Protein backbone atom coordinates (compact mmCIF):
# COMPACT_ATOMS: atom_id res chain seq x y z
CA UNK A 1 0.00 0.00 0.00
CA UNK A 2 1.33 3.40 -0.98
CA UNK A 3 1.23 6.08 1.68
CA UNK A 4 -0.30 9.28 0.25
CA UNK A 5 1.87 11.83 2.01
CA UNK A 6 0.72 14.47 -0.45
CA UNK A 7 -2.71 14.43 1.23
CA UNK A 8 -1.08 16.22 4.16
CA UNK A 9 -0.84 19.27 1.92
CA UNK A 10 -4.62 19.63 1.68
CA UNK A 11 -5.27 21.30 5.10
CA UNK A 12 -2.47 23.79 4.49
CA UNK A 13 -3.77 24.46 1.01
CA UNK A 14 -7.31 25.11 2.24
CA UNK A 15 -6.01 27.31 5.06
CA UNK A 16 -3.87 29.36 2.70
CA UNK A 17 -6.54 29.53 0.03
CA UNK A 18 -9.28 30.77 2.36
CA UNK A 19 -7.22 33.21 4.37
CA UNK A 20 -4.81 34.51 1.78
CA UNK A 21 -5.83 33.80 -1.78
CA UNK A 22 -9.55 34.41 -1.32
CA UNK A 23 -9.20 37.66 0.62
CA UNK A 24 -6.51 38.99 -1.70
CA UNK A 25 -8.54 38.04 -4.75
CA UNK A 26 -11.42 40.11 -3.40
CA UNK A 27 -9.14 43.12 -2.98
CA UNK A 28 -7.55 42.54 -6.37
CA UNK A 29 -10.94 42.30 -8.05
CA UNK A 30 -12.10 45.43 -6.22
CA UNK A 31 -9.10 47.35 -7.52
CA UNK A 32 -10.66 47.35 -11.00
CA UNK A 33 -13.67 49.39 -9.88
CA UNK A 34 -13.84 53.04 -8.86
CA UNK A 35 -14.41 54.07 -5.25
CA UNK A 36 -17.72 55.75 -4.56
CA UNK A 37 -17.02 56.41 -0.88
CA UNK A 38 -17.92 54.53 2.31
CA UNK A 39 -16.59 51.28 0.95
CA UNK A 40 -18.90 51.30 -2.07
CA UNK A 41 -17.57 50.77 -5.57
CA UNK A 42 -18.84 51.39 -9.07
CA UNK A 43 -20.24 48.59 -11.22
CA UNK A 44 -18.09 49.42 -14.23
CA UNK A 45 -14.86 47.54 -14.69
CA UNK A 46 -12.03 49.96 -15.45
CA UNK A 47 -8.35 50.65 -14.95
CA UNK A 48 -8.68 54.20 -13.56
CA UNK A 49 -7.10 53.31 -10.19
CA UNK A 50 -4.08 51.74 -11.90
CA UNK A 51 -3.83 54.65 -14.31
CA UNK A 52 -3.76 57.00 -11.34
CA UNK A 53 -1.24 54.87 -9.43
CA UNK A 54 1.16 54.84 -12.39
CA UNK A 55 0.74 58.42 -13.60
CA UNK A 56 0.26 60.38 -10.40
CA UNK A 57 3.57 61.66 -9.03
CA UNK A 58 2.38 61.23 -5.46
CA UNK A 59 1.92 57.46 -5.78
CA UNK A 60 5.12 57.05 -7.80
CA UNK A 61 7.05 58.98 -5.15
CA UNK A 62 5.55 56.78 -2.45
CA UNK A 63 6.57 53.65 -4.39
CA UNK A 64 10.07 55.05 -4.83
CA UNK A 65 10.38 55.87 -1.11
CA UNK A 66 9.20 52.35 -0.24
CA UNK A 67 11.77 50.72 -2.53
CA UNK A 68 14.52 53.09 -1.40
CA UNK A 69 14.08 52.64 2.37
CA UNK A 70 13.65 48.86 1.91
CA UNK A 71 16.81 48.59 -0.20
CA UNK A 72 18.83 50.70 2.24
CA UNK A 73 17.52 48.69 5.19
CA UNK A 74 18.41 45.46 3.36
CA UNK A 75 21.97 46.64 2.67
CA UNK A 76 22.35 47.83 6.27
CA UNK A 77 20.99 44.58 7.64
CA UNK A 78 23.34 42.48 5.51
CA UNK A 79 26.36 44.63 6.39
CA UNK A 80 25.63 44.44 10.11
CA UNK A 81 24.40 40.87 10.31
CA UNK A 82 27.01 39.11 8.17
CA UNK A 83 29.97 39.68 10.54
CA UNK A 84 27.83 38.65 13.50
CA UNK A 85 26.65 35.52 11.69
CA UNK A 86 30.20 34.71 10.61
CA UNK A 87 31.69 35.08 14.10
CA UNK A 88 28.94 33.00 15.72
CA UNK A 89 29.14 30.31 13.03
CA UNK A 90 32.89 29.97 13.50
CA UNK A 91 32.77 29.95 17.30
CA UNK A 92 33.78 26.63 18.78
CA UNK A 93 32.83 27.37 22.37
CA UNK A 94 29.31 27.17 23.79
CA UNK A 95 29.16 30.97 23.60
CA UNK A 96 28.16 30.56 19.96
CA UNK A 97 24.93 28.85 20.92
CA UNK A 98 24.30 31.34 23.73
CA UNK A 99 24.73 34.31 21.37
CA UNK A 100 22.56 32.65 18.74
CA UNK A 101 19.87 32.02 21.36
CA UNK A 102 20.06 35.69 22.33
CA UNK A 103 19.43 36.70 18.74
CA UNK A 104 16.51 34.27 18.45
CA UNK A 105 15.00 35.67 21.67
CA UNK A 106 15.44 39.22 20.39
CA UNK A 107 13.22 38.38 17.42
CA UNK A 108 10.44 37.47 19.87
CA UNK A 109 10.20 41.07 21.13
CA UNK A 110 7.30 42.85 19.52
CA UNK A 111 8.34 45.49 17.02
CA UNK A 112 6.20 48.13 18.77
CA UNK A 113 8.33 47.85 21.91
CA UNK A 114 11.53 47.84 19.84
CA UNK A 115 10.49 50.96 17.95
CA UNK A 116 9.42 52.80 21.09
CA UNK A 117 12.86 52.02 22.48
CA UNK A 118 14.34 53.91 19.52
CA UNK A 119 11.91 56.79 20.03
CA UNK A 120 12.94 57.07 23.71
CA UNK A 121 16.65 56.97 22.83
CA UNK A 122 16.26 59.75 20.28
CA UNK A 123 13.93 61.97 22.36
CA UNK A 124 15.14 65.55 22.81
CA UNK A 125 15.87 64.99 26.49
CA UNK A 126 17.04 61.39 26.03
CA UNK A 127 20.48 60.24 27.10
CA UNK A 128 21.80 60.17 23.53
CA UNK A 129 20.96 63.78 22.74
CA UNK A 130 22.05 64.96 26.19
CA UNK A 131 25.40 63.21 25.68
CA UNK A 132 25.84 64.57 22.12
CA UNK A 133 25.13 68.10 23.27
CA UNK A 134 27.26 67.78 26.41
CA UNK A 135 30.17 66.65 24.26
CA UNK A 136 29.60 69.57 21.92
CA UNK A 137 28.96 67.27 18.95
CA UNK A 138 25.59 68.87 18.22
CA UNK A 139 24.01 72.17 19.20
CA UNK A 140 20.44 70.97 19.01
CA UNK A 141 18.85 67.58 19.68
CA UNK A 142 19.13 65.17 16.76
CA UNK A 143 16.06 63.16 15.94
CA UNK A 144 15.32 60.43 13.47
CA UNK A 145 11.58 60.42 14.07
CA UNK A 146 9.70 61.55 10.98
CA UNK A 147 12.66 61.00 8.66
CA UNK A 148 13.48 58.37 6.05
CA UNK A 149 16.71 57.62 7.94
CA UNK A 150 14.61 56.81 10.99
CA UNK A 151 12.42 54.45 8.98
CA UNK A 152 15.52 52.71 7.59
CA UNK A 153 16.92 52.24 11.11
CA UNK A 154 13.55 50.93 12.30
CA UNK A 155 13.37 48.47 9.41
CA UNK A 156 16.94 47.32 10.09
CA UNK A 157 16.08 46.80 13.75
CA UNK A 158 13.09 44.75 12.63
CA UNK A 159 15.07 42.52 10.26
CA UNK A 160 18.50 42.27 11.88
CA UNK A 161 17.72 39.11 13.86
CA UNK A 162 16.30 37.36 10.78
CA UNK A 163 19.35 38.43 8.82
CA UNK A 164 21.78 36.95 11.34
CA UNK A 165 19.85 33.68 11.57
CA UNK A 166 19.72 33.31 7.77
CA UNK A 167 23.36 34.17 7.21
CA UNK A 168 24.47 31.96 10.11
CA UNK A 169 23.14 28.92 8.27
CA UNK A 170 24.82 30.17 5.08
CA UNK A 171 28.25 30.53 6.70
CA UNK A 172 27.89 27.10 8.30
CA UNK A 173 27.69 25.52 4.86
CA UNK A 174 31.17 26.88 3.95
CA UNK A 175 33.74 24.31 5.11
CA UNK A 176 36.29 25.80 7.45
CA UNK A 177 38.94 23.73 5.69
CA UNK A 178 38.66 26.07 2.66
CA UNK A 179 39.63 29.03 4.80
CA UNK A 180 42.52 27.05 6.28
CA UNK A 181 43.65 26.09 2.76
CA UNK A 182 43.58 29.72 1.65
CA UNK A 183 45.52 30.73 4.75
CA UNK A 184 48.16 28.04 4.15
CA UNK A 185 48.60 29.37 0.60
CA UNK A 186 49.34 32.83 2.01
CA UNK A 187 46.02 34.60 1.56
CA UNK A 188 45.45 37.49 3.94
CA UNK A 189 42.15 37.63 5.91
CA UNK A 190 40.80 40.32 3.58
CA UNK A 191 41.80 38.41 0.44
CA UNK A 192 40.32 35.22 1.86
CA UNK A 193 37.07 37.06 2.57
CA UNK A 194 36.84 38.48 -0.97
CA UNK A 195 37.98 35.35 -2.82
CA UNK A 196 36.58 32.53 -0.70
CA UNK A 197 33.93 33.48 1.85
CA UNK A 198 32.03 36.14 -0.09
CA UNK A 199 31.70 34.20 -3.39
CA UNK A 200 30.59 31.07 -1.56
CA UNK A 201 28.11 33.08 0.56
CA UNK A 202 26.69 34.96 -2.41
CA UNK A 203 23.66 32.72 -3.10
CA UNK A 204 22.76 32.81 0.59
CA UNK A 205 23.39 36.55 0.78
CA UNK A 206 21.10 37.14 -2.18
CA UNK A 207 18.39 34.88 -0.77
CA UNK A 208 18.71 36.45 2.69
CA UNK A 209 18.86 39.93 1.21
CA UNK A 210 15.72 39.37 -0.83
CA UNK A 211 13.94 37.95 2.20
CA UNK A 212 14.86 41.04 4.23
CA UNK A 213 13.92 43.34 1.35
CA UNK A 214 10.53 41.67 0.99
CA UNK A 215 9.89 41.99 4.72
CA UNK A 216 10.79 45.69 4.60
CA UNK A 217 8.57 46.37 1.59
CA UNK A 218 5.55 45.09 3.52
CA UNK A 219 6.52 46.42 6.96
CA UNK A 220 3.97 48.76 8.46
CA UNK A 221 4.74 49.31 12.16
CA UNK A 222 8.32 50.60 11.87
CA UNK A 223 7.41 52.86 8.96
CA UNK A 224 4.28 54.19 10.66
CA UNK A 225 5.80 54.84 14.08
CA UNK A 226 9.22 56.12 13.05
CA UNK A 227 7.86 57.89 9.99
CA UNK A 228 5.73 59.94 12.37
CA UNK A 229 3.14 60.68 9.69
CA UNK A 230 5.83 62.35 7.56
CA UNK A 231 7.19 59.36 5.65
CA UNK A 232 4.67 57.53 3.52
CA UNK A 233 5.62 54.06 2.40
CA UNK A 234 3.08 52.01 0.49
CA UNK A 235 1.96 49.94 3.51
CA UNK A 236 1.41 53.16 5.49
CA UNK A 237 -0.52 54.70 2.60
CA UNK A 238 -2.62 51.54 2.20
CA UNK A 239 -3.53 51.64 5.90
CA UNK A 240 -4.50 55.30 5.66
CA UNK A 241 -6.52 54.71 2.49
CA UNK A 242 -8.50 51.93 4.14
CA UNK A 243 -8.90 53.26 7.66
CA UNK A 244 -9.36 56.96 7.05
CA UNK A 245 -10.81 57.16 3.58
CA UNK A 246 -12.43 53.71 3.42
CA UNK A 247 -11.39 53.49 -0.23
CA UNK A 248 -11.08 49.77 -0.66
CA UNK A 249 -10.52 49.90 -4.42
CA UNK A 250 -7.61 52.32 -4.28
CA UNK A 251 -6.16 50.41 -1.33
CA UNK A 252 -6.48 47.18 -3.32
CA UNK A 253 -4.75 48.84 -6.26
CA UNK A 254 -1.86 50.01 -4.09
CA UNK A 255 -1.59 46.53 -2.54
CA UNK A 256 -1.43 45.01 -6.03
CA UNK A 257 1.22 47.54 -7.11
CA UNK A 258 3.24 46.67 -4.01
CA UNK A 259 2.95 42.94 -4.67
CA UNK A 260 3.88 43.24 -8.34
CA UNK A 261 6.81 45.56 -7.51
CA UNK A 262 8.14 43.05 -4.99
CA UNK A 263 7.80 40.13 -7.40
CA UNK A 264 9.45 42.05 -10.26
CA UNK A 265 12.34 43.21 -8.09
CA UNK A 266 12.90 39.63 -6.89
CA UNK A 267 12.85 38.23 -10.42
CA UNK A 268 15.15 40.97 -11.70
CA UNK A 269 17.60 40.43 -8.85
CA UNK A 270 17.78 36.71 -9.54
CA UNK A 271 18.20 37.33 -13.28
CA UNK A 272 21.01 39.83 -12.69
CA UNK A 273 22.75 37.45 -10.31
CA UNK A 274 22.52 34.59 -12.84
CA UNK A 275 23.98 36.77 -15.60
CA UNK A 276 26.79 37.82 -13.30
CA UNK A 277 27.58 34.19 -12.51
CA UNK A 278 27.46 33.22 -16.18
CA UNK A 279 29.70 36.16 -17.08
CA UNK A 280 32.13 35.23 -14.33
CA UNK A 281 32.12 31.64 -15.57
CA UNK A 282 32.94 32.80 -19.11
CA UNK A 283 35.73 35.05 -17.88
CA UNK A 284 37.13 32.27 -15.71
Amino acid at each position, binding site marked *: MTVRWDLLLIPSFIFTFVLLTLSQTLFLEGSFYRDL*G*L*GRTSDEFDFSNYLRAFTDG*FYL*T*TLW*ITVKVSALAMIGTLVFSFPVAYVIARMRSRWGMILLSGIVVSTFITIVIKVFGII*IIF*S*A*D*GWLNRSLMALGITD*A*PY*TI*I*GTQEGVVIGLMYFTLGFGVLTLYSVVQTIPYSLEEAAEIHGASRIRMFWRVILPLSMPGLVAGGLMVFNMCMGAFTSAALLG*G*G*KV*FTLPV*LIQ*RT*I*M*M*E*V*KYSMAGTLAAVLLVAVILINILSIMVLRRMRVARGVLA
Partner: protein
Amino acid sequence: MMKTTYVNIVMRGLAVAAMLAASTLPAAADGKFDGVTLRVATFGGSWKESLDATITPKFEAMGGKIEYVTGSPQANLAKLIAGRGRAPFDVMEILDAQVPDFMATDFLQKIDLSKVPNTRYLADFQYNEMMVASWNTQETICYNTEKFAELGIPAPTTYADLAVSALEGRISIPDITSGGGLANFAGFAYAAGGDGVNIEPGIALIRSLKALKFWSRGGETVTQFGSGDIYAAVVHAGWCVRAKNAGYPVTTTHPVITDSIKGVAKEGWLGVMKSSEHHEAAVWFINEYIAEGFQYRAGTKNGVMPVNQAVISSLSADPIAAEMLETDPAMIAKALRVDYSKVNVSDWIDSWNRMVTSQ
Protein backbone atom coordinates in the same frame (compact mmCIF):
# COMPACT_ATOMS: atom_id res chain seq x y z
CA MET B 1 -26.51 45.56 79.05
CA MET B 2 -23.27 46.86 77.64
CA LYS B 3 -23.26 44.11 74.97
CA THR B 4 -26.87 44.86 73.95
CA THR B 5 -26.04 48.58 73.46
CA TYR B 6 -23.03 47.70 71.34
CA VAL B 7 -25.10 45.36 69.15
CA ASN B 8 -27.76 48.05 68.78
CA ILE B 9 -25.17 50.61 67.66
CA VAL B 10 -23.73 48.19 65.12
CA MET B 11 -27.19 47.27 63.81
CA ARG B 12 -28.20 50.92 63.51
CA GLY B 13 -24.92 51.68 61.74
CA LEU B 14 -25.51 48.88 59.26
CA ALA B 15 -29.07 50.08 58.64
CA VAL B 16 -27.84 53.61 57.93
CA ALA B 17 -25.13 52.27 55.65
CA ALA B 18 -27.68 50.20 53.76
CA MET B 19 -29.94 53.24 53.35
CA LEU B 20 -27.03 55.32 52.11
CA ALA B 21 -26.03 52.65 49.64
CA ALA B 22 -29.62 52.44 48.43
CA SER B 23 -29.84 56.20 48.02
CA THR B 24 -26.65 56.45 45.98
CA LEU B 25 -27.83 53.71 43.65
CA PRO B 26 -31.45 54.67 43.04
CA ALA B 27 -32.14 52.04 40.44
CA ALA B 28 -29.79 49.55 41.98
CA ALA B 29 -30.45 45.88 41.88
CA ASP B 30 -33.73 46.24 40.04
CA GLY B 31 -32.44 43.77 37.48
CA LYS B 32 -33.59 45.92 34.58
CA PHE B 33 -30.65 44.85 32.45
CA ASP B 34 -30.09 41.33 33.77
CA GLY B 35 -27.91 39.40 31.38
CA VAL B 36 -27.47 42.32 28.97
CA THR B 37 -23.96 42.97 27.71
CA LEU B 38 -23.79 46.39 26.14
CA ARG B 39 -20.85 46.99 23.82
CA VAL B 40 -19.78 50.58 23.49
CA ALA B 41 -17.25 51.76 20.94
CA THR B 42 -15.43 54.60 22.61
CA PHE B 43 -12.01 56.02 23.41
CA GLY B 44 -9.51 54.29 25.67
CA GLY B 45 -7.25 55.59 28.43
CA SER B 46 -8.57 58.21 30.82
CA TRP B 47 -11.80 58.53 28.82
CA LYS B 48 -12.69 54.92 29.54
CA GLU B 49 -11.64 55.45 33.15
CA SER B 50 -14.16 58.27 33.43
CA LEU B 51 -16.88 56.04 31.98
CA ASP B 52 -15.90 53.29 34.38
CA ALA B 53 -16.04 55.69 37.30
CA THR B 54 -19.45 57.13 36.53
CA ILE B 55 -21.64 54.99 34.27
CA THR B 56 -20.39 51.39 34.43
CA PRO B 57 -21.20 50.78 38.14
CA LYS B 58 -24.77 52.00 37.69
CA PHE B 59 -25.33 49.67 34.75
CA GLU B 60 -23.81 46.74 36.60
CA ALA B 61 -26.07 47.48 39.58
CA MET B 62 -28.99 46.85 37.24
CA GLY B 63 -27.63 43.45 36.33
CA GLY B 64 -25.94 44.36 33.07
CA LYS B 65 -22.39 44.48 31.88
CA ILE B 66 -20.66 47.03 29.69
CA GLU B 67 -17.81 46.11 27.39
CA TYR B 68 -15.88 49.03 25.93
CA VAL B 69 -14.49 48.52 22.45
CA THR B 70 -11.76 51.12 22.51
CA GLY B 71 -10.42 52.71 19.37
CA SER B 72 -10.81 55.73 17.17
CA PRO B 73 -14.20 56.50 15.61
CA GLN B 74 -12.49 56.30 12.20
CA ALA B 75 -11.37 52.73 12.89
CA ASN B 76 -14.83 51.87 14.19
CA LEU B 77 -16.50 53.27 11.09
CA ALA B 78 -14.11 51.22 8.96
CA LYS B 79 -15.13 48.10 10.92
CA LEU B 80 -18.76 48.98 10.42
CA ILE B 81 -18.36 49.39 6.68
CA ALA B 82 -16.30 46.20 6.40
CA GLY B 83 -19.06 44.37 8.30
CA ARG B 84 -21.68 45.95 6.01
CA GLY B 85 -23.42 47.52 8.99
CA ARG B 86 -23.10 44.51 11.30
CA ALA B 87 -21.24 46.16 14.13
CA PRO B 88 -19.35 44.47 16.95
CA PHE B 89 -20.83 47.11 19.26
CA ASP B 90 -24.22 48.61 20.20
CA VAL B 91 -23.37 52.26 20.78
CA MET B 92 -20.68 54.22 18.97
CA GLU B 93 -18.91 57.54 19.39
CA ILE B 94 -19.28 59.49 16.15
CA LEU B 95 -17.18 62.47 15.10
CA ASP B 96 -18.82 65.49 13.50
CA ALA B 97 -16.84 64.78 10.33
CA GLN B 98 -18.54 61.37 10.15
CA VAL B 99 -22.08 62.66 10.55
CA PRO B 100 -22.69 63.08 6.79
CA ASP B 101 -21.43 59.50 6.25
CA PHE B 102 -23.87 58.15 8.81
CA MET B 103 -26.68 60.19 7.32
CA ALA B 104 -25.89 58.72 3.91
CA THR B 105 -25.95 55.15 5.18
CA ASP B 106 -28.31 52.96 7.08
CA PHE B 107 -26.08 52.02 9.99
CA LEU B 108 -28.02 53.63 12.84
CA GLN B 109 -31.36 52.86 14.40
CA LYS B 110 -33.74 55.54 15.60
CA ILE B 111 -33.37 56.59 19.22
CA ASP B 112 -36.43 56.65 21.44
CA LEU B 113 -35.82 60.18 22.74
CA SER B 114 -38.56 59.83 25.38
CA LYS B 115 -36.10 57.54 27.14
CA VAL B 116 -33.33 60.12 27.02
CA PRO B 117 -34.78 62.75 29.37
CA ASN B 118 -31.40 64.40 29.87
CA THR B 119 -31.71 65.86 26.39
CA ARG B 120 -33.50 68.69 28.24
CA TYR B 121 -30.03 69.91 29.18
CA LEU B 122 -29.00 70.04 25.51
CA ALA B 123 -29.65 72.69 22.90
CA ASP B 124 -32.21 71.72 20.28
CA PHE B 125 -29.62 71.23 17.54
CA GLN B 126 -27.71 68.79 19.72
CA TYR B 127 -30.08 65.86 19.36
CA ASN B 128 -32.26 64.23 16.79
CA GLU B 129 -33.82 60.83 16.40
CA MET B 130 -30.60 59.34 14.98
CA MET B 131 -27.86 60.87 17.16
CA VAL B 132 -27.33 62.68 20.43
CA ALA B 133 -24.46 65.11 20.98
CA SER B 134 -22.07 63.85 23.63
CA TRP B 135 -19.13 66.25 23.95
CA ASN B 136 -17.29 69.15 22.37
CA THR B 137 -13.60 69.67 22.19
CA GLN B 138 -11.95 73.05 22.07
CA GLU B 139 -9.01 72.80 19.73
CA THR B 140 -6.27 75.01 21.10
CA ILE B 141 -2.59 75.83 20.99
CA CYS B 142 -1.16 74.16 24.07
CA TYR B 143 2.29 75.51 24.91
CA ASN B 144 5.03 75.21 27.49
CA THR B 145 4.96 78.54 29.34
CA GLU B 146 8.43 78.08 30.86
CA LYS B 147 10.10 77.32 27.52
CA PHE B 148 8.33 80.21 25.80
CA ALA B 149 9.52 82.56 28.55
CA GLU B 150 13.04 81.12 28.40
CA LEU B 151 13.20 81.63 24.62
CA GLY B 152 11.62 85.07 24.85
CA ILE B 153 8.65 84.09 22.70
CA PRO B 154 5.40 85.88 23.54
CA ALA B 155 2.30 83.81 24.26
CA PRO B 156 0.82 82.80 20.89
CA THR B 157 -2.56 84.07 19.83
CA THR B 158 -2.58 82.66 16.28
CA TYR B 159 -1.10 79.67 14.46
CA ALA B 160 1.20 82.06 12.58
CA ASP B 161 2.75 83.08 15.92
CA LEU B 162 4.33 79.63 16.05
CA ALA B 163 6.35 80.28 12.90
CA VAL B 164 9.48 81.38 14.73
CA SER B 165 12.89 79.83 14.28
CA ALA B 166 13.28 79.00 17.99
CA LEU B 167 10.31 76.65 17.68
CA GLU B 168 11.52 74.76 14.60
CA GLY B 169 11.04 71.08 15.18
CA ARG B 170 9.30 71.77 18.51
CA ILE B 171 5.72 71.99 17.32
CA SER B 172 3.28 69.17 16.88
CA ILE B 173 0.04 69.39 14.96
CA PRO B 174 -2.53 66.64 14.38
CA ASP B 175 -2.06 64.30 11.46
CA ILE B 176 -5.13 64.61 9.28
CA THR B 177 -6.07 61.00 10.07
CA SER B 178 -6.21 61.71 13.82
CA GLY B 179 -9.37 62.67 15.68
CA GLY B 180 -8.63 66.39 15.60
CA GLY B 181 -7.01 66.34 12.19
CA LEU B 182 -9.84 67.59 10.03
CA ALA B 183 -11.09 70.28 12.44
CA ASN B 184 -7.63 71.75 12.88
CA PHE B 185 -6.84 71.50 9.18
CA ALA B 186 -9.93 73.65 8.65
CA GLY B 187 -8.67 75.98 11.38
CA PHE B 188 -5.41 76.48 9.50
CA ALA B 189 -7.26 77.03 6.21
CA TYR B 190 -9.60 79.68 7.62
CA ALA B 191 -6.85 81.34 9.68
CA ALA B 192 -4.74 81.75 6.56
CA GLY B 193 -7.56 83.41 4.64
CA GLY B 194 -8.94 80.30 2.96
CA ASP B 195 -12.01 78.25 3.75
CA GLY B 196 -13.39 74.73 3.49
CA VAL B 197 -12.98 74.72 -0.28
CA ASN B 198 -9.90 76.92 -0.69
CA ILE B 199 -7.47 75.01 1.51
CA GLU B 200 -4.20 76.01 -0.16
CA PRO B 201 -3.58 79.00 2.17
CA GLY B 202 -3.86 76.60 5.11
CA ILE B 203 -1.31 74.27 3.58
CA ALA B 204 1.06 77.21 3.06
CA LEU B 205 0.60 78.19 6.72
CA ILE B 206 1.36 74.64 7.88
CA ARG B 207 4.47 74.62 5.69
CA SER B 208 5.61 77.86 7.32
CA LEU B 209 5.75 76.08 10.70
CA LYS B 210 9.00 74.36 9.81
CA ALA B 211 10.02 70.88 10.91
CA LEU B 212 6.66 70.01 12.33
CA LYS B 213 5.77 66.81 14.11
CA PHE B 214 2.44 65.21 13.37
CA TRP B 215 0.65 63.45 16.19
CA SER B 216 -1.77 60.64 15.53
CA ARG B 217 -3.05 60.25 19.12
CA GLY B 218 -3.38 63.21 21.47
CA GLY B 219 -1.61 61.28 24.21
CA GLU B 220 1.59 61.54 22.16
CA THR B 221 1.69 65.29 22.81
CA VAL B 222 1.57 64.75 26.58
CA THR B 223 4.55 62.38 26.28
CA GLN B 224 6.39 64.82 24.01
CA PHE B 225 5.84 67.74 26.39
CA GLY B 226 7.32 65.51 29.10
CA SER B 227 10.32 64.42 27.04
CA GLY B 228 11.04 67.99 25.91
CA ASP B 229 10.50 67.08 22.25
CA ILE B 230 7.89 69.78 21.77
CA TYR B 231 7.20 73.22 23.20
CA ALA B 232 3.80 73.71 21.56
CA ALA B 233 1.06 71.54 20.12
CA VAL B 234 -2.14 72.17 18.26
CA VAL B 235 -4.36 69.90 20.25
CA HIS B 236 -7.69 69.95 22.04
CA ALA B 237 -7.70 71.46 25.51
CA GLY B 238 -8.23 68.07 27.10
CA TRP B 239 -4.71 66.94 26.27
CA CYS B 240 -3.35 70.16 27.71
CA VAL B 241 -5.35 69.50 30.89
CA ARG B 242 -3.83 66.03 31.04
CA ALA B 243 -0.34 67.42 30.45
CA LYS B 244 -0.90 69.94 33.22
CA ASN B 245 -2.19 67.22 35.53
CA ALA B 246 1.00 65.27 34.71
CA GLY B 247 2.98 68.20 36.09
CA TYR B 248 4.13 69.96 32.91
CA PRO B 249 4.05 73.79 32.78
CA VAL B 250 1.54 74.17 29.97
CA THR B 251 -1.47 76.27 29.23
CA THR B 252 -3.80 76.85 26.31
CA THR B 253 -4.62 79.65 23.99
CA HIS B 254 -7.69 79.60 21.78
CA PRO B 255 -6.31 80.72 18.44
CA VAL B 256 -7.75 83.73 16.67
CA ILE B 257 -8.95 82.41 13.31
CA THR B 258 -10.52 85.54 11.77
CA ASP B 259 -11.86 88.83 13.14
CA SER B 260 -15.07 87.12 14.13
CA ILE B 261 -13.90 83.55 14.80
CA LYS B 262 -11.82 82.51 17.79
CA GLY B 263 -11.04 78.88 18.53
CA VAL B 264 -11.96 75.67 16.73
CA ALA B 265 -14.61 73.27 17.98
CA LYS B 266 -15.08 69.60 17.29
CA GLU B 267 -18.27 67.79 18.21
CA GLY B 268 -18.89 64.24 19.31
CA TRP B 269 -22.13 62.33 18.92
CA LEU B 270 -23.52 59.01 20.05
CA GLY B 271 -25.57 56.67 17.91
CA VAL B 272 -27.17 53.27 18.35
CA MET B 273 -26.16 50.72 15.74
CA LYS B 274 -28.89 49.27 13.59
CA SER B 275 -27.61 45.79 14.36
CA SER B 276 -27.95 46.34 18.13
CA GLU B 277 -30.49 44.22 19.94
CA HIS B 278 -30.19 46.23 23.16
CA HIS B 279 -31.96 49.46 22.30
CA GLU B 280 -33.23 50.11 25.82
CA ALA B 281 -29.81 49.61 27.38
CA ALA B 282 -28.20 51.69 24.64
CA VAL B 283 -30.50 54.69 25.20
CA TRP B 284 -30.06 54.33 28.96
CA PHE B 285 -26.30 54.58 28.37
CA ILE B 286 -26.71 57.68 26.19
CA ASN B 287 -28.90 59.30 28.82
CA GLU B 288 -26.26 58.66 31.48
CA TYR B 289 -23.50 59.89 29.18
CA ILE B 290 -25.09 63.32 28.94
CA ALA B 291 -26.04 63.38 32.63
CA GLU B 292 -24.20 65.63 35.07
CA GLY B 293 -22.00 62.90 36.57
CA PHE B 294 -20.08 61.88 33.46
CA GLN B 295 -20.23 65.31 31.82
CA TYR B 296 -18.65 67.04 34.83
CA ARG B 297 -15.96 64.43 35.15
CA ALA B 298 -15.18 64.58 31.42
CA GLY B 299 -14.90 68.35 31.72
CA THR B 300 -12.63 68.44 34.75
CA LYS B 301 -10.56 65.26 34.32
CA ASN B 302 -10.47 64.97 30.55
CA GLY B 303 -10.73 68.63 29.60
CA VAL B 304 -13.58 68.02 27.21
CA MET B 305 -16.36 70.56 26.98
CA PRO B 306 -19.71 69.18 28.21
CA VAL B 307 -22.82 69.32 26.07
CA ASN B 308 -24.92 69.44 29.21
CA GLN B 309 -25.65 73.18 29.59
CA ALA B 310 -26.12 72.85 33.35
CA VAL B 311 -22.58 71.52 33.73
CA ILE B 312 -20.78 74.12 31.58
CA SER B 313 -21.18 76.95 34.10
CA SER B 314 -20.00 74.76 36.98
CA LEU B 315 -16.67 74.12 35.20
CA SER B 316 -15.42 77.58 36.08
CA ALA B 317 -15.18 76.39 39.69
CA ASP B 318 -12.47 73.94 38.66
CA PRO B 319 -9.18 75.87 38.43
CA ILE B 320 -7.55 73.83 35.64
CA ALA B 321 -10.72 73.59 33.55
CA ALA B 322 -11.32 77.32 34.03
CA GLU B 323 -7.80 78.08 32.83
CA MET B 324 -7.79 75.77 29.85
CA LEU B 325 -11.37 75.84 28.58
CA GLU B 326 -13.47 78.66 27.23
CA THR B 327 -16.63 78.60 29.35
CA ASP B 328 -18.20 81.89 28.29
CA PRO B 329 -21.18 80.96 26.05
CA ALA B 330 -20.65 84.04 23.90
CA MET B 331 -17.05 83.05 23.22
CA ILE B 332 -17.94 79.38 22.71
CA ALA B 333 -20.35 80.49 20.00
CA LYS B 334 -17.47 82.24 18.21
CA ALA B 335 -15.52 79.03 17.59
CA LEU B 336 -15.10 77.65 14.08
CA ARG B 337 -17.44 74.75 13.43
CA VAL B 338 -17.03 72.91 10.17
CA ASP B 339 -20.10 71.85 8.24
CA TYR B 340 -18.72 68.61 6.82
CA SER B 341 -21.66 68.18 4.48
CA LYS B 342 -20.28 71.13 2.50
CA VAL B 343 -16.62 70.16 2.21
CA ASN B 344 -14.80 67.43 0.35
CA VAL B 345 -12.88 65.61 3.05
CA SER B 346 -11.30 63.31 0.48
CA ASP B 347 -9.71 66.35 -1.21
CA TRP B 348 -8.41 67.57 2.13
CA ILE B 349 -6.72 64.25 2.84
CA ASP B 350 -5.31 64.08 -0.67
CA SER B 351 -3.87 67.61 -0.35
CA TRP B 352 -2.42 66.79 3.06
CA ASN B 353 -0.75 63.62 1.77
CA ARG B 354 0.81 65.51 -1.13
CA MET B 355 2.00 68.25 1.20
CA VAL B 356 3.71 65.70 3.44
CA THR B 357 5.34 63.82 0.57
CA SER B 358 6.59 66.98 -1.13
CA GLN B 359 8.23 68.33 2.03
